[in-house]
């Protein structure tokens, strides 16, 4: 990736992280940890990879994105707002009564959200349905979905995966965000889904393993996925839960709790410093 592009995307990812902190702080609830871990994915998808138009969020030939790990909504909303789907100011209304920014993605009311999600395991099936629809219509849009590593404990993920491979949905990219933490502990402690790449390979996916907080590796993975024919791609990415906020990194306690005022100040100071560093 060109240095200039990379810096632009790093700035975007930092702004997404600031939006996550802003939203969850004002909401006094929400899921910062798993939102922060996918900031680079969201930056790359919405600024480079996907054919989308913030001025025409429902355009028929757009690429689709389904946040199967719907609790990372603060991340998705921050990406959509910074991309121009709705005002960034709206992020501070996250989870508030009357706000369009529901605790989990709501396709009916949020510009740019392609599928309501949040009940784990269902989003991947919805993404599979969209990818299948493209094939049935002879359309060439692509479908992307991000799953949590804890989420793949849901049996429906494997029902969807079996089907996607059986139907040869090469327009589908499933990203598994392997930050290793779920609410009750590490994913091995709770109910280990490891080895993850081997499982998706056995289900018939083309599997790519990357560091999901590394934009160069993300770019290479999505480029590779475009070359794969006849089977869906799974990008299994190691990430750091809480990435970018020092005290949240690798702490499962920040899965589903919001920063308080002091936490907020520290996080925003860190992210502002990062932004200044990037913007020079």
């Amino acid at each position, binding site marked *: 990736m060109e240095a200039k592009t990379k810096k632009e995307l790093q700035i975007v990812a930092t702004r997404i992280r600031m939006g996550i902190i802003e939203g969850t702080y004002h909401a006094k609830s929400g899921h910062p940890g798993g939102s922060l871990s996918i900031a680079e994915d969201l930056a790359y998808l919405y600024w480079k990879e996907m054919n989308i138009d913030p001025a025409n969020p429902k355009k*028929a030939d757009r690429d*689709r994105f*389904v946040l199967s790990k719907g609790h990372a909504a603060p991340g998705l909303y921050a990406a959509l707002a910074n991309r121009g789907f709705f005002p960034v100011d709206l992020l501070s209304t996250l989870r508030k009564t009357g706000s369009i920014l529901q605790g989990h993605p*709501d*396709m*009916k009311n949020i510009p740019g959200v*392609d*599928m*309501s999600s*949040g*009940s784990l*395991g*269902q*989003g991947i*099936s*919805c*993404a*599979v*349905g*969209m*990818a*299948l*629809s*493209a094939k*049935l*219509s002879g359309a060439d849009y692509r479908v992307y979905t991000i799953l949590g590593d804890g989420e793949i404990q849901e049996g*429906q993920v494997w*029902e*969807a995966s*079996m*089907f996607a491979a059986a139907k040869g949905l090469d327009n589908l990219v499933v990203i598994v965000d392997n930050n290793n933490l779920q609410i009750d502990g590490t994913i091995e402690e709770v109910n280990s889904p490891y080895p993850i790449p081997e499982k998706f390979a056995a289900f018939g996916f083309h599997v790519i393993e990357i560091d999901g907080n590394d934009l160069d590796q993300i770019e290479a993975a999505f480029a590779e996925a475009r070359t794969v024919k006849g089977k869906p791609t799974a990008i299994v990415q190691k990430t750091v839960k809480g990435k970018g906020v020092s005290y949240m990194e690798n702490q499962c306690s920040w899965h589903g709790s919001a920063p308080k005022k002091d936490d907020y100040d520290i996080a925003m100071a860190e992210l502002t410093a990062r932004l200044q560093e990037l913007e020079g």
Partner: protein
Amino acid sequence: MADVMKQATRDAYGQALVELGAENPDLIVMDADLAAATKTGGFKKAYPDRFIDTGIAEGNMMSIAAGLAATGKTVFASSFAMFAAGRAFEQVRNSIGYPHLNVKIGATHAGVSVGEDGATHQCCEDIGLMRTIPGMVILNPADGIEAKKAVKAAAAWDGPVYLRFGRLAVPMATTEDTPFEIGKGVELVAGSDVTIIATGLLVAEALQAAEELKAEGISARVINMATIKPIDKDIILKAAAETGCIVTAEEHNIIGGLGSAVAEVVCEANPVPVVRVGVQDTFGQSGPADELLTLYGLRAANIVAKAKEAIALKKN
């Protein structure tokens, strides 16, 4: 009643899908390995490219249907009522109901008339489950003629619809000329002493019950309530006001189904006795469908008895 002509509503469902497939190139039919039983097999044969079988994975099927609908397809997703409404309840609720997507759930093998397969496959809870999902339309046609109309109305409806069909061949209780509109009950027989509000295969029993009551000098109105949700409040309240008592009849648990829906309307606006004919909060069992319908009290004779109870409960 022309009981020479019998058809299972699932058969009419399958026929209607084939007809709709010709009219709408964006119509997709899904199944979860039960195409021969749900009767989606005809569509599969006619339009193999638009027939999607997920295999035995009903929850996955419902969410895939949602994804298809989110990209502009009209989808009929089929399974037995037990698995469509029961196993896949949460996918129906969250993937389809919450975003109000254009998925039609074709649920066959509802009720005890499934017969020999027994309790695991005899779903008497589906109306109750589906009724609690905001925006869900529930259609429970009485016979093959009405089932076809229901399928076509569902296809034209914008939003999720749950269609309830039976396995058993049942007599025609309606004719081609009987009006069908989502959200409207239809008065099949005029009457003034009691109103029988029936749905599904109990409509034919209700018509027979009305004849038996007539022979005893009791004037029973019969309403076919093919739409359970949104329920036709006007026809219920008119019946409450004009006949003073109501009997409901359905092949469903008396909890949560048509009887509950009618009682809710009546209690809030014009309380009159409502007596429910239905499965008495119990599981079914294996046996020939006709024997089970009798065993679980879903016959004209049961409606006649409950009609007399309802009349006795009327305040003078």
